[in-house]
């Protein structure tokens, strides 16, 4: 069939569609992180509990499984909405490129299926299966969660590094779906996302137990509840920083407009400084702390490395600089702050096998949860807004992909209202879960483990 094209949507409708997609994705990504990271933490605690008979570990496994049930349900539906929105909001993208980026989604469909099936078994068959078999049913949940993240993010990587197809008169031909899926951005972006998921889940859960310890609950249950997820997240952090560095270097090579926006760099050249902080005003980076030659060094390990600036990008093809620059700065700052927090615990633990005595450590751990989420969101904004005005980099503009039907803003209002209610309800239910007796997950509340 011919090319599907239509009149452009109004600017207001384009903004509405982008906002709706941004809100739904930004919301789902948090839940997805818990979906990827939390099963591994839970299954590990569960395994320790069975292995050692330690009651604290068993209690933790029960509690986390219960929370996981709620988070997965909400994550599953908020993820479904995204597959609807791909068509509802961006039919231009799907009509032209749906077949090119479809394969990873088909694979993700199966991964998600496996995850849902085994999560159902893991949560509901706690008392129906022998303990060892039951524990093993948690493993497919962990693997499928990570695989889902890989598949979905590889589709996003393709939007940044589109390939695996030919164009003839605007029509896609000669599709090579595997080449599209394994594009140059895929290894970096997927690993960056999966590690981020473990950081969000790890610091997020540790934050809950740090809050409990600040209220004076310093028993073994709370200590493990803090230490186990915190350790995983803290161990992941330096690797995450290294992968992020590699991803930025890939941008210098393959998507220079995004790196230029990240740095607010106007002029192409060598000996480029790194801009820390600052604002991009009147077409220039102002009030930034400049570290001489640092960007050139980071990109090519030599001060003479040439880095492309925005001057090489046509004005109409430049991403908005401030949103990208500030998001990136915030993400990096949080990443290093979390690294320091992890180092603090490591040093104290190495010297006297205990948590730091000061309450400051607990306060900072409480903050680390929201901070990790903020780093996640700002990282996502960097990669998504940094790709603008393209939806498929250098191939299709976001404005050409949006649904031309009138009245998209009405959908936005309804969806925003739904997400507000959903957020309030999710937080409320999770807070209520905290102080409650738990029994086998999803079998009601029992007497076994009083709070």
């Amino acid at each position, binding site marked *: *069939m011919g090319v*599907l094209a239509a009149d452009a949507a109004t600017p207001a409708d384009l903004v509405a569609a982008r906002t709706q997609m941004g809100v739904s994705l930004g919301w789902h990504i948090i839940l997805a992180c818990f979906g990827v990271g939390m099963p591994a933490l839970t299954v590990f605690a569960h395994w320790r509990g069975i292995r050692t008979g330690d009651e604290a570990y068993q209690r933790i496994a029960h509690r986390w499984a219960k929370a996981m049930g709620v988070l997965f349900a909400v994550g599953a539906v908020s993820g479904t909405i995204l597959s609807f929105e791909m068509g*509802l909001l961006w039919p231009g993208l799907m009509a032209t490129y749906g077949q090119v980026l*479809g394969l990873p989604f088909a694979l993700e469909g199966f991964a998600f299926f496996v995850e849902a099936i085994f999560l159902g078994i893991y949560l*509901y068959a706690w008392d129906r299966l022998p303990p060892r078999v039951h524990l093993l049913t948690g493993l497919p949940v962990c693997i499928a969660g990570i695989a889902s993240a890989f598949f979905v993010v590889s589709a996003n990587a393709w939007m940044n590094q589109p390939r695996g197809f030919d164009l003839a008169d605007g029509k896609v031909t000669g599709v*090579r779906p595997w080449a599209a899926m394994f594009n140059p951005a895929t290894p970096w972006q997927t690993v960056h996302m999966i590690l981020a998921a473990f950081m969000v889940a790890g610091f997020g859960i540790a934050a809950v137990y740090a809050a409990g310890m600040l209220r004076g609950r310093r028993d073994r249950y709370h200590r493990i509840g803090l230490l186990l997820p915190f350790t995983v997240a803290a161990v992941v952090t330096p690797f995450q920083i290294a992968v992020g560095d590699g991803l930025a270097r890939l941008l210098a090579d393959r998507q220079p407009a995004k790196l230029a926006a990240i740095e607010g760099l106007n002029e192409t050249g060598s000996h480029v400084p790194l801009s820390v902080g600052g604002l991009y005003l009147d077409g220039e980076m102002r009030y930034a702390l400049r570290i001489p030659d640092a960007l050139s060094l980071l990109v090519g390990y030599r001060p003479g490395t040439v880095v492309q600036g925005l001057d090489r990008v046509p004005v109409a093809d430049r991403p908005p600089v401030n949103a990208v620059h500030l998001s990136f700065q915030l993400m990096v700052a949080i990443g290093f702050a979390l690294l320091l927090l992890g180092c603090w615990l490591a040093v104290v633990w190495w010297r006297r096998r205990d948590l730091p005595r000061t309450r400051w450590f607990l306060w900072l751990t409480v903050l680390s949860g929201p901070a990790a989420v903020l780093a996640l969101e700002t990282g996502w904004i960097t990669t998504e807004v940094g790709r603008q005005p393209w939806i498929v980099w250098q191939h299709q503009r976001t404005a050409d992909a949006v649904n031309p039907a009138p009245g998209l803003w009405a959908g936005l209002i309804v*969806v925003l209202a739904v997400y507000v209610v959903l957020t309030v309800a999710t937080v409320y239910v999770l807070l209520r879960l905290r102080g409650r007796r738990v029994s086998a997950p999803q079998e009601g509340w029992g007497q076994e483990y009083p709070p």
Partner: protein
Amino acid sequence: MTAAQWLLLFSWAGLTLYALFGGADFGGGFWDALAGGARRGRAQRELIEHSIGPVWEANHVWLIFVLVMFWTCFPGVFASVCSTLYIPLTLVAIGIIARGAAFAFRKASTELWQQRLFGGAFALSSVLTPFFLGTIAGGVASGRVPYGLAAGGIVTSWWNATSLMAGALAVGATAYLAAVYLTADARRGGDPGLADVFRRRGLWTAAVTGVVAILGIFVVRVDAPSLYTGLTGRALPLVVVSGVAGLASMVALAFRRYALARVTAALAVAAVLWGWAVAQYPVMLPPGVTVPEAAADPAVLHATLGTVIAGMVLLVPSLLWLYVLFQRPAPGPSSKTTDR
């Protein structure tokens, strides 16, 4: 058969499974809404929750499977349907959010007012979501969604006689499937009284849904003549199978042969979906866009087909285990720790 035909077959099979399993979950919500006051309806609600709980998320994935299959293998058709029917699709999406979240929240809440609030949201969205899914099917089946981005009427494409009839049929079918499934679940749970409640309801809904379906044939005759031609022509055997299976399930229910009732009820619903497909094939969307014309690049189709077959090898045993595990009675009371 071509790769595109195979993939269409798998997609339609996925849609059928969504209707039979996901649909029954929606129907569970329908009966949850009608279960009566908090005290009186408690036994019914517990049965529904018990039956849906472990499986609804997996059942629900069939919908995602169908969406992804269509956008990968028939991207133009997917984009056309989504852009024209974005209003009911947005409503379906919201219904899915409200339903899944409310169900999980109700499970995690203990106080009566919370359970009522979340239960209300669960029940309402369980009825509205299949209704709007039905209107979408009606819009496509009656040829109101042309090929092209937002090329059809954004209201008339789903607010018309065929769509409304299909919406009503969808609500009826889901309620009917749920009632039939729940009779067997209630009997296995050791509550023949409850089984009888759902048996009576199953008989009533079967009758009402049957009447809607028969009226629907007249609606289609006036409103969507080409669909009518297909349904009374090539698809006639499937229409007859649906009617006969529906009647058989009523007889089986009347004689308390619940397992037989399940199979025949599922067959009756599945035959409607396949009847629609056969009646319309090979046209996917007007004006006469057929399967080979709408299909994606052959390389994509082959990769997807390989993925689907490999995925099924993983999926089918897992799904069977899930269903078998929870169709067995729960272990003895020693490990039951329910305390609400």
